[in-house]
């Protein structure tokens, strides 16, 4: 039976307590409903591969099907891999909320970006890598971080730290990094360090984090042919006037 209507009103159903419209296609895959304008097909709803429900346009060869995940498809509901954009340069979505991550440039674990985060951390000047005596005051004591996947970028900004009570002959450390370094990687970074004696050596210190740690020490190359380094000491810095400022990037532990 076919129902043909002419006029300004199409089909309206008004049923309470049951489906208003049921469209059944027996056995074969294909379109269940076809939508037209001026007699030309513009879109379809159908089934593909047995029970994959799809919605697709006709001319653009694009649509979606639903098979436990949402899949890009062509006009007949068939999967189209790596062919359909989500949004475009003049028609962008706004925010995207994900509880998981995204695969960029490939589908392997190395292509998986699962985390992004910005925040703060509190640098602590100390005379030991763990615990120890710590600076009693700072003019500025600020730390910021950005985490992209397992890559951490930290900014450390401490000025005029007071070393009263710290052991002058001990190494000087900054504790409190926001993430532990990976077990097989280190971090090094050039440091802006003012009003220090640098142990009598020329050149500025380099911040150094060893694997699996959340502190850095400061090393100075001592200009011997072996390129040995000197571990900067608390006493190399002038209390209440020395600063440590640097930005560093490292790989964090998972």
């Amino acid at each position, binding site marked *: 039976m076919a129902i043909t209507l002419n006029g300004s009103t199409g089909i309206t159903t008004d049923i309470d307590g049951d489906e208003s419209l049921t469209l059944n296609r027996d056995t074969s895959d294909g379109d269940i409903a076809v939508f037209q304008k001026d007699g030309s097909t513009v879109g379809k709803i159908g089934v593909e591969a047995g029970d994959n429900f799809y919605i697709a346009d006709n001319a653009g060869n694009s649509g979606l099907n639903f098979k436990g995940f949402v899949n890009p498809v062509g006009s007949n509901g068939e999967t189209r891999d790596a062919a359909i954009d989500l949004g475009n340069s003049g028609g962008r979505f706004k925010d995207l909320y994900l509880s998981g991550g995204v695969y960029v440039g490939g589908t392997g674990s190395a292509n998986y970006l699962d985390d992004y*985060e*910005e*925040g*703060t*951390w*509190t640098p602590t000047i100390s005379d030991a*890598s*763990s*615990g120890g005596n710590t600076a009693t005051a700072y003019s500025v004591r600020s730390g910021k*971080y950005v985490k992209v996947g397992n890559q951490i970028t930290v900014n450390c900004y401490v000025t005029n730290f007071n070393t009263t009570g710290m052991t002058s002959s001990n190494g000087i450390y900054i504790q*409190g*990094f*926001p*993430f*532990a370094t*990976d*077990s097989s990687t280190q971090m090094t970074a050039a440091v802006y360090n003012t009003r220090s004696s640098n142990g009598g050596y020329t050149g500025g210190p380099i911040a150094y984090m*060893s*694997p*699996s*740690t*959340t502190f850095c020490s400061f090393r100075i190359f001592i200009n011997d042919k072996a390129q040995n380094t000197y571990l900067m000491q608390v006493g190399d810095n002038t209390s209440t006037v020395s600063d440590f400022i640097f930005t560093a990037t490292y790989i*964090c*532990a*998972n």
Partner: protein
Amino acid sequence: MALTKETIEDKIEIVGEYKAVQVRTATVVKEDGVELSRSFSRHVVQPTDDITGESAEVQAICNAVHTQAIKDAYQAMLDAQEEV
């Protein structure tokens, strides 16, 4: 209109060979119960760190994962690093 600010430890992770306990503290500002902003601050508790200033939850986690064997291994690693 009621503005509220709360600080919560919203993520605690145990990472790496030496079971570093990474704590994320979120500062959440709400207006009439609707979240307006959420900012993060982080710190890490290593096996040899003093945990007396940590929350009860973090202390419990540290006590569970920072066994004496882990503490000894971490300290040995630090001692070895000092020689670099």
